[in-house]
């Protein structure tokens, strides 16, 4: 009998696999504590601002992360979020709660459909996804204006607290995030579909040789990405109480989603990471502006701070990689 070369110790394995996630969570907790110490009473209201305020971004980070894991990129997540927001806001204006719940489902479906279509076009045509999704993002941003030409629209007042919590209640936002992660992402990740998603991002030819249908797996990834974008759009409607068709919102959200994916430990080359990391990364990025305000700094410099944190974290990750390879 030949024994396989001594495997990697369990602790090392755990550290490698979940170390990054633990780091991002620690970073979030530390920033949260600093933020809490800045205000005289940090309670439900403060927590609600943190979670509900970053909720849309967290969903957007998830939508980007899953495409990046599969070895692609989705440049349309921001525009699609704005579109879903406008669609929901325009339809929900002056509607009852049950009607609004129905419209929520319509908004999610529309987002899934559009995203799936993008995935189908890019896999069938062979045009790189960065081109297809970028072009699509312009069209979708334009469509948002058609649906809702000026900021406005509305939502049933009863639906708002259900999704993002009342004025000082952070629980619904946390529950919604957890529900989507636990109810959709975790089962998916453990399914054959999920493994196939990681496989095509890690090594497309080995995945093909293993019998994975690369084309369908990619399209499925886009569909799921669209679902998460849909949540981001619906949540935005609930948080702001209306719709805002400005394209700049979408562009800014897209860039932040990529930043959250990188900060959340998903390799931009695909195949590694998860969705929980990017969610916490989005929360971290959302905490930075209020933190700077609390420190008495110009919150307009928040972008600078986000950039510095991103570079430092990625540099740190690079160092870890070099160390791992050397050992």
């Amino acid at each position, binding site marked *: 009998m030949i*024994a396989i070369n001594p495997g990697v110790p369990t602790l090392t394995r755990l550290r490698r696999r979940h170390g990054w996630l633990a780091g991002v969570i620690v970073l979030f907790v530390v920033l949260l504590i600093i933020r809490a110490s800045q205000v005289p009473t940090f309670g439900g209201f403060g927590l609600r601002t943190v979670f509900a305020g970053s909720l849309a971004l967290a969903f957007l980070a998830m939508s980007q992360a899953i495409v990046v894991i599969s070895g692609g990129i989705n440049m349309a997540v921001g525009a699609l979020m704005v579109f879903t927001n406008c669609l929901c806001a325009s339809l929900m204006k002056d509607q009852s709660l049950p009607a609004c719940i129905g419209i929520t489902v319509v908004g999610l479906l529309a987002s899934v459909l559009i995203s799936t279509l993008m995935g189908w076009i890019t896999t069938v045509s062979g045009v790189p996804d960065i081109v297809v999704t970028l072009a699509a993002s312009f069209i979708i941003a334009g469509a948002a204006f058609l649906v809702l030409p000026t900021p406005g629209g509305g939502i049933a007042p009863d639906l708002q607290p259900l999704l993002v919590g009342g004025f000082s209640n952070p629980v619904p936002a946390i529950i919604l995030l957890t529900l989507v992660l636990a109810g959709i992402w975790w089962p998916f990740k453990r399914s*054959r579909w999920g*493994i*196939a998603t*990681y*496989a095509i991002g890690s090594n497309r030819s*080995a995945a093909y040789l293993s*019998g994975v*249908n690369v084309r369908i797996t990619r399209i499925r990834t886009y569909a799921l990405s669209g679902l998460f974008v849909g949540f981001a759009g619906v949540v935005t409607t609930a948080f702001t109480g209306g719709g805002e068709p400005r394209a700049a919102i979408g562009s800014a959200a897209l860039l932040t989603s990529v930043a959250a994916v990188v900060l959340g430990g998903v390799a931009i080359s695909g195949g590694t990471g998860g969705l929980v990391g990017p969610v916490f990364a989005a929360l971290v990025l959302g905490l930075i502006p209020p933190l700077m305000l609390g420190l008495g700094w110009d919150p307009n410099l928040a972008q600078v701070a986000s950039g510095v944190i991103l570079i430092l974290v990625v540099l740190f990750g690079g160092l870890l990689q070099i160390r791992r390879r050397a050992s």
Partner: protein
Amino acid sequence: MAQELLQATGIAKQYGSVIALRNANLSIHPGESHALLGANGAGKSTFVKILTGVINSSAGQLSVDSVATCFSSPAQARQAGIASVFQDPALVSDLTVAQNLRLTGTPRAGFARALDDLGITGFDPGEQIADISLPFLRMFDLARALAHQPRLLVLDEITAALPTDLADRVFDSMRRHTAAGGSVLFISHRLEEIIEHCGRCTVFRDGRDVATFVPREGGESRIVQSMLGDSAGLVREEARRSSVSFDGVKPQLEVRSVAAGEQLADVSFAVRPGEVVAVVALEGQGQDTLFEGIAGAQKFDSGEVLIGGNPLSASHPAKAIARGVAFVPSDRAHALLPQRPISENLALPLFRRTRTWGPIPQKTVSAKVTRTVERLSIDTRAASQARRLSGGNQQKLTIGRWLTAGFDTLLLFDPTRGIDIGTKHQIYDLIRDIADEGAAVLMYTSELREVNLVADRAVVLYRGRMVAELAADVGDEALLSAAHGFTNTHSHSGKGATS
């Protein structure tokens, strides 16, 4: 006659204008180990890819149990009972072993049993593929294929770079598999393995099957003859050699006992100015590492390289180039700027030597480029983009750029791969011209014929070691035997030029 398990008739494959497989026929009985043989480029791997559903054939018919089939994906082939293990394990490195098993829908228990049969313990399903060494990955891949209880097991070069103890386990499992009524299609460059472990063998040459026989009866010589055919007698080409004597001439390039990981061990030889030395080796015997190491694209673990008597410690290709060492890789895509014009491709190494600041003196550059284009007779109709040139003309660019720059040590890695015969001869002439002007040329070639046509001398690599140094005109058979590790039977002490 018993019903064949697999019957391939008239399989052909064409990529654009390139014909990879012309007319391949092969039948496999139930319960036999069948070897597939052929020189590089004979069409073996194309055939295996068609058989396992990786690519579609352009023509021909596959039947399993006399029922015509056509696989459009590896998953379909696996369902039909054909499981394969490729040279590069088809395992996704970012996933764990268990996840890779789920990807193929492999039963965990069957996999564990197959591993147990292979005599491997300590299997941990949670281990990430990236943390497992290559030989074990091959065994995992084999166990995964066996777990599907295939009727036909396709093993493509599984024993290449596998330690002997593990290779023996592969043969044991082949025996068990055939004893249980399954069949094996075995592809290997190691003839002794085929003679010992395979009941029949089919030899491919130039995209056709040329012979099927019992390897134990035919022996090594019959296999080698079938692989080569009588192509040597067909075309009498003029061989060019160096006309000067090398006695007492100091070497331009000297390699002293270099080693690198598991790829290379203790390789030493020297190339003198005006001399062309051919490196002969089968795929994956360490030649890539040797060339990249000399060119500075990779580091040797030990040993040294001397250029003109002085050690070259090239940590970067630019340092090697500065010492006059030029490397032409086999894949032209690595060397060309496909979207840029011919002139820029030719002048690329030249830019290093012009003034660093200010504009590049276009006149001098274009004069040199024009001279090179004329000398190489490059077809300039598609001058604006290098990618629009034919493969032969592209290769002329990759060699020709060093003519414009000036150098005295040239490393050529399979310079005529995939090039038509006419252009090949132009390149042979070019190589000889370069040597006659005083450059030392080291050339790896996958075409044995070229050794006699171009080189003065051949060194043979086998499993990372230099196993022979032969005269260039020793003959294809002797070269091929040496490349297969049979050095005792054809030992020649030919050193230096034959003139």
